[in-house]
């Protein structure tokens, strides 16, 4: 469904992506792992058009993402949970969740949008009383859940999760991981998750890809990662300081 072929991206002298090849099947959950600064987030941002690659092609359902004529309709297929939730400070929680439902091609009446927002908030374990609060009044874990509710508000076909558990305590991280797995399973969505949290990987993933040195170093089913015998993957999933991956990057 989503295919990246030979994708390159640099920022000045920093050649972050050096020919990424990756394929994500429809209805599956792909988790991209790798160290900090290896370009995991850039990968998903290239799919959404937030970052333009210098070389390579990215297709969704066989269509080149740079050639999409109706950008609104294209983006309406996606939901995204950002690393720090990226909630709009000036809007109350329910308007954050219902943002897409209040404008553009998916616009609904205000009351209906609010009802959907509250239903999605309940789905991520938040009660209706947070709906009228501002994002700054919520804890980090609650903000993450609101971000998750916003990502699924319009029932997208494809959902991206950028480091969904970063900055959360282990219990809240577990709650978010379980929520993501449940939502992905019940919605049948295609998902790409960026993380370096191995608990997330084992909870969320159907397939795993490891990004290292600007390329996909290893990819395969999550069940195979422990027996992969790739020294880079082995060092990463076991969190060892010694190994082929330089610890000072």
């Amino acid at each position: 469904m989503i295919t990246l072929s030979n994708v390159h991206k640099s920022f000045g002298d920093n050649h972050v992506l050096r020919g990424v090849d990756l394929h994500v099947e429809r209805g599956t959950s792909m988790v991209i792992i790798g160290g900090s600064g290896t370009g995991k987030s850039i990968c998903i941002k290239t799919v959404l058009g937030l970052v333009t690659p210098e070389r390579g092609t990215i297709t969704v359902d066989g269509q080149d993402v740079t050639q999409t004529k109706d950008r609104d309709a294209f983006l309406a297929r996606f939901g995204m949970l950002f690393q720090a939730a990226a909630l709009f400070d000036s809007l109350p929680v329910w308007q954050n969740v219902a943002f897409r439902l209040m404008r553009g091609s998916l616009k609904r009446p205000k009351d209906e949008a609010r009802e959907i927002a509250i239903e999605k908030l309940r789905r991520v374990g938040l009660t209706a009383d947070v709906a009228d609060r501002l994002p700054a009044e919520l804890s980090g874990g609650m903000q993450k859940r609101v971000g998750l509710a916003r990502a699924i508000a319009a029932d997208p076909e494809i959902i991206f999760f950028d480091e969904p558990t970063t900055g959360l305590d282990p219990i809240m991280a577990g709650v978010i991981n379980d929520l993501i797995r449940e939502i992905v399973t019940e919605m049948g969505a295609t998902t790409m998750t960026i993380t370096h949290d191995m608990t997330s990987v084992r909870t969320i993933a159907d397939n795993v890809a490891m990004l290292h040195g600007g390329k996909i170093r290893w990819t395969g089913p999550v069940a195979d990662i422990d027996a992969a015998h790739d020294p880079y993957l082995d060092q990463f999933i076991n969190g060892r300081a010694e190994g082929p991956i330089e610890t000072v990057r």
Partner: protein
Amino acid sequence: MRLLAGIGAVTLGLLGAIGRVAMFLGATLTHLVRPPFYPREFALALLNIGWLSLPVVGLTAIFTGGALALQIYAGGARFNAEAVVPQIVAIGMVRELGPVLVGLMIAARVTSSIAAEIATMKVTEQIDALVTLSTHPMKYLTVPRVLAATLAVPLLVGVGDIIGIFGGYAVATGTLGFNAAAYIQNTVDFLELRDVVSSLVKGAVFGCLAALMGCYFGMNSGRGAQGVGRATKGSVEAAAVLILAANFVLTGVFFSV
């Protein structure tokens, strides 16, 4: 040789910056006439830039008008021209001090606020989030603010002109012994339509520049708190300089003989 290279680099940098701002203005104007429109964002910007700026504009204008009356009276006394206080206060406030001071106050209050808000949104990926939610940041953030400032600042300038003249009137009639009715009559008789029109046009241009600089620097901010700080500082500096430069040009256009 090194000096020439330095001058060349600065010139190229300046031309590049002018080009980028011109392209940003062009994009803003293009999005201004193409739907979707965001009336709620426009109304909020109008409230913030227009209504909430009234206290600072009013205070700036009244003190400036009062000080101007005192200065003109003291200066005019040197050659027996104390009686021109109403006329000079009116012309000074309406043609120059009203628009320029309101423009600079807007640069300080609004440009900085817009730049800091948008830069923070960029740093915290809220701009990226807007894009993924099928909302163009230029349409949602820039157009409402630039349009609101272009419409609201002329009104603020008009209010500032009136309050400034009132400040001069209060000082002149309260402490300098001017007759109240004669002061008002002299002010009204001396002002021309061209003075008022130039004041409002300057207000519109200054408002547009102030909001445009806030949005431009916010959208192009660097990373982290330092990036937000630099964007905010740069936006106020650029807006202030552009307002003063535009004032010079517009004064030439309206009043060159």
